[in-house]
């Protein structure tokens, strides 16, 4: 017997490099994007939801609120963009919840990959979902008669701002997805948290007619800032202040919910 018996297999690597970790994340982003293509129900809902909002709100509220559908569409479309994309973030939580329930996360955890890759990959992949939502809303809105009265550049900025905000919001959704025991739970908690936030704003109606206490809430609601920034970028008006405030809120939401979600995720894993 020699002192050093030949190993039957090469020794495993000691630690995962940053580049491998990034590659893991991109592989799992690829997975999320592939799943958008194959999950027709999700894709259909994702595209039909903004169309439904646009048709309903424009023709139901339009006359009453703005005295005409075209005037209302110019007012409401930026809000409906915000609404669609915020609700689309719920999908992130739902998918995570499903992944945990059906055991695929156990598979990921048993592999020598970066621990945060499944979470980061799911969220990056969802950027594509959010982009679809933004594109459909804007596209269908323009078919209905919405006109961008600023410049293409600020329209692009409007879309980017939405995506940045969605990337922050989806950490909140991810947290719910990780905490809830069932997909129904994700949906309920998500809606209960997001409805007051979305509709307690100037997103569909001007805040002027609301009672004082509600106006106070509307004034500090991040959705209000985001909607104002979108209006400014798409149809003109002040941009800098609401955009900076939306970005600060996005940062705040990210700083609070991303570490919480990562912590819950790590405890589960």
């Amino acid at each position, binding site marked *: 017997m020699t002192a050093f*018996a030949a190993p*039957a297999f090469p020794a495993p690597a000691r630690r995962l490099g940053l580049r491998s970790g990034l590659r893991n994340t991109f*592989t*799992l982003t690829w997975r999320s994007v592939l799943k958008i293509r194959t999950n027709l129900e999700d894709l259909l809902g994702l595209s039909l939801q903004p169309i439904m909002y646009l048709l309903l709100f424009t023709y139901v509220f339009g006359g009453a609120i703005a005295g005409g559908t075209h005037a209302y569409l110019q007012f409401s479309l930026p809000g409906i963009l915000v609404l669609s994309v915020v609700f689309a973030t719920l999908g992130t939580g739902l998918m995570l919840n499903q992944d945990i329930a059906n055991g695929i996360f156990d598979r990921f955890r*048993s*592999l020598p990959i970066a621990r945060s890759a499944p979470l980061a990959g799911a969220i990056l992949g969802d950027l594509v979902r959010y982009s679809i939502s933004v594109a459909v809303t804007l596209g269908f809105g323009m078919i209905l008669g919405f006109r961008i009265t600023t410049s293409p550049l600020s329209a692009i900025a409007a879309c980017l701002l939405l995506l940045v905000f969605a990337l922050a919001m989806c950490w909140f959704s991810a947290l719910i997805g990780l905490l809830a025991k069932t997909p129904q739970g994700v949906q309920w908690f998500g809606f209960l948290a997001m409805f007051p936030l979305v509709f307690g704003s100037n997103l569909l109606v001007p805040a002027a007619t609301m009672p004082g206490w509600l106006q106070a809430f509307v004034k500090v609601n991040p959705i209000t800032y985001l909607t104002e920034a979108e209006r400014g970028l798409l149809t003109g008006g002040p941009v800098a202040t609401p955009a900076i405030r939306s970005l600060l809120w996005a940062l705040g939401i990210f700083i609070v919910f991303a570490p919480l979600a990562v912590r819950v995720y790590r405890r589960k894993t």
Partner: protein
Amino acid sequence: MRYDATSANAIEATGLIKRFGKTTALAGVDLVARPGRVLGVLGPNGAGKTTAVRILATLLRPDGGQASVFGYDVLRDAYQVRQLIGLTGQYASVDEGLSGTNNLIMIGRLLGLPRAQARARAAELLARFELTDAAGRIVKTYSGGMRRRLDLAASLVGRPRVLFLDEPTTGLDPNSRTDAWAMIRGLVSDGVTVLLTTQYLDEADQLAHDIVVIDKGKVIATGTPDELKARTGGQVLLVAPSDPARLAEAATLLEALAGAEVTTDAEAGAVSAPVADKALLPRVVRELDGRGIELAEFTLRKPSLDEVFFTLTCHRADDEEDTQTRELEDTSR
């Protein structure tokens, strides 16, 4: 050297403890899997089998005890352990929203294979598990058996040295089970160490070189299948009267003579009892003959693992308490 595979055991666990709230799922479990062998972990539902596998596969932190895979600690060296293991869970853990091919490519890519190699490895494994025809289909449309096979394929992408199979054949039809067994034997002949949990004793009997019986979070027996069979003492005598109406009478008689509990199988019209002493046989025949009970069958055989298992655990698998542990394990996922 720590990876000296010639001296290290493939899996080693000592004193594993895991609690879920007030329930103790593992109350100090020791087990060893030798390299290139199959270790069967047997036990009723809720015995702690899945908890043990999840700890060994780095998915769950134990509350006490130590475990290692080829010398690498499952807590301290989890990253190394993950490079050596493959896991096929009790619940098929493949992505239902992807095709079979994409599931395997994804895992190959995650394991660092270049795109072309990941694709080739996927095709190779799909062919090996007879899934080539369904390769492009979304897994949601697969049958239970196909999903299991894909799950097994997924755990083999990285050519693991140690494979954890947590109830790999639960819910499979007999044909697929036999296929799965053949595949497992094939892997073992390639030098893979397998830890297999199962409720099916014939499965352990067929595949395992060593068996650990766990019940209520404790190891209650270890040994080779033959050793375990020998442990329950001697052999089993089976008596079937020609006239089924006299089965009860034969049972009473056998119980008195053997001095042990008999098992009556009314459907088969047979009664069996463990016999420690072969001198008992002529006496049984004489007594039965004396009462005019004609015999259709009279056989002496080794006990099945079922009988061993029943003797060892001495309780039904569906105890309430066990179901509870199982539920707790599930919610902890």
